[in-house]
């Protein structure tokens, strides 16, 4: 009621609305919106920002991006989609399992939750450097443990990050390690928000713990799972930090992702047009995947 009376429009309100929005709009339009269009514009040029050369070439950058093996965009895109699939089908189920167990109320719940979330707070560069040491062929803790367990022999230590068959998986493991806790926390918050009456009612009807999870909890936290899936997929498409620290796309481009190619185009080859084209493609892909996930979850209803 009070809202209706108070919210009468006055002449000076127009100006006030504008002034209150101004700082946000300047930042948002200046740094996010305008650059998207500028990137789109640059992507139509053969452009070297250092020398200032700029010549219009239409969609040639995009054609080259999708067809050239030398640039390797398709391979990089495939890699990032593989990372996305691993996140969705390995990382998220693990997070969900932990969230369901902890959310049901178990002794030590808070301690488990807090420790599982801890890696999220550590800088990705630190995690990358740490895993470089863990994976170190001669002295890394991974090979030493595997040798102690007689899984590998002392004179034949695998070079996890240097072998093109294992490098991408080796890059995925630290991501899994870092972000399981993040998704778990979101899902845990969802599980905790399920009204206790719903659980009790189902239980009195003789539902098992698994059935309660399947028919009560999961539908209840569907919107959170959707957000996690979107974050996992777009996060994989955009992935950069960890790959940059661990392999920088190597060996032999085995772990290249779109972002590493984009950076290479920009700062090693001064191809700002091509770099922009890759950036535009990434924005579009993130957007499209978010829409697809939204649609899949809506059809589930």
């Amino acid at each position, binding site marked *: 009621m*009070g809202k209706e*009376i*108070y*919210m*009468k*429009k006055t002449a000076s*309100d127009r100006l*006030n609305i504008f002034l*209150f929005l*101004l*700082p*946000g*709009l300047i*930042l*948002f339009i200046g*740094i*996010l*919106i305008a*650059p*998207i269009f500028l*990137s789109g514009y*640059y992507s139509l040029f053969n452009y070297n920002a250092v020398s200032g050369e700029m010549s219009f070439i239409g969609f040639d950058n995009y054609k080259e991006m999708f067809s050239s093996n030398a640039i390797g965009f398709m391979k990089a895109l495939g890699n990032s989609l593989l990372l996305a699939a691993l996140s969705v089908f390995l990382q998220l189920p693990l997070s969900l399992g932990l969230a369901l167990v902890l959310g*049901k*109320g178990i002794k030590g719940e808070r301690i*488990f*939750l*807090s*420790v*599982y979330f*801890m*890696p999220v*707070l*550590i*800088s*990705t*560069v*630190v995690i990358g*450097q740490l*895993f470089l*040491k863990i994976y170190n062929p*001669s*002295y890394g*803790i991974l090979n030493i443990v595997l040798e102690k367990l007689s899984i590998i022999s002392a004179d034949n230590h695998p070079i996890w990050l240097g072998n093109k068959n294992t490098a991408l998986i080796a890059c995925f493991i630290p991501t899994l*390690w870092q972000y399981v806790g*993040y998704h778990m*926390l*979101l899902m845990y918050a969802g599980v905790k928000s399920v009204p206790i009456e719903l659980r009790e009612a189902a239980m009195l009807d003789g539902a*098992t713990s698994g059935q309660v999870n399947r028919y009560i909890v999961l539908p209840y936290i569907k919107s959170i799972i959707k*957000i996690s899936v979107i*974050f996992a997929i777009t996060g994989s*498409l*955009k992935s*950069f930090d960890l790959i*940059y*620290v661990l392999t920088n796309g190597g060996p032999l481009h085995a772990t290249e992702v779109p972002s590493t190619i*984009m*950076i290479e185009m*920009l700062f090693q080859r001064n191809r*700002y047009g091509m770099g922009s084209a890759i*950036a535009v493609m990434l924005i579009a892909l993130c957007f499209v995947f978010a829409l697809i996930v939204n649609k899949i979850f809506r059809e589930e209803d």
Partner: protein
Amino acid sequence: MAIGKKKSSSNEFESKVYSKKMTPGKVVIYILLLFWLFINIFPIYWMFTFSLKSNEEIFGANVAGLPNEWLWSNYSRAMNTGSMGVYFLNSVIVAVVTILITLIAALMATYAITRFKWKGSKPMNSFFMLGLTIPIHASIVPIYVILINLKLTNSLTALIVPYSAFSLAMAILICTGFMIEIPYELDESASIDGCNRWGIFFKIICPLMKPAVSTVGIYTFLQCWNELMFANIFNSKEEYKTLPVGIQGLSGAYTTDWGPIGAALAVATFPMLFVYIFLSRRIQDSFIAGAVKG
């Protein structure tokens, strides 16, 4: 097998509600939980131990135990070779100023969107929410070109402005959640007392937004504290490097000497974890608010 498993988990659910008895199912769950706990803690523990060891210990004599000889000199070597102190300070300055700018812009915009009645408020909100899905890559080339032209590469401003812009959408989302909870009667009575829109904003709304301020602050802090791509590209001079870039460079300087790298990693990590011990619930709530309020 499957049936047996189901039975034990149902027992376990009942025992949870009706008694505190340990069942076999519960034991299995605890073993798995403890195993994952170990997986989470061990790399950090290992990092801490090798930050205090010599190469001989790390490479064979004492791989995973506590150091035989605690080499605190690794820490002084890390601090002296690179400029860890400078990187740390830069990261703090960037984070704090980014949080301030983000908060001011977000609080003002949220106020315009939620406390004024106008046709454009919903579309304006949706417009800002676009920022949640736009990756930071979107602006890398244009901003780099502008920075070169303005000769602003190698400055903290080159990071603060983009970080603020990219934190804005989440900040508005969080602020909106809190601001719509504030009763409109407060604005109304202040208005009757002769307070104008700006007075209401500063005297009534802002003081009541403290929980939102801490949530936005924590969330934004971690975003810019860890950012690598922009920091790596825009600032190449030692005196403007942030912590992630600095550590990356330091590891290049000490490729074979593990102790000082471990020390640098520890310096970048443990202050954060120390704060987390005391504020764990607050920090967790910030992440939940960020993702779930959407």
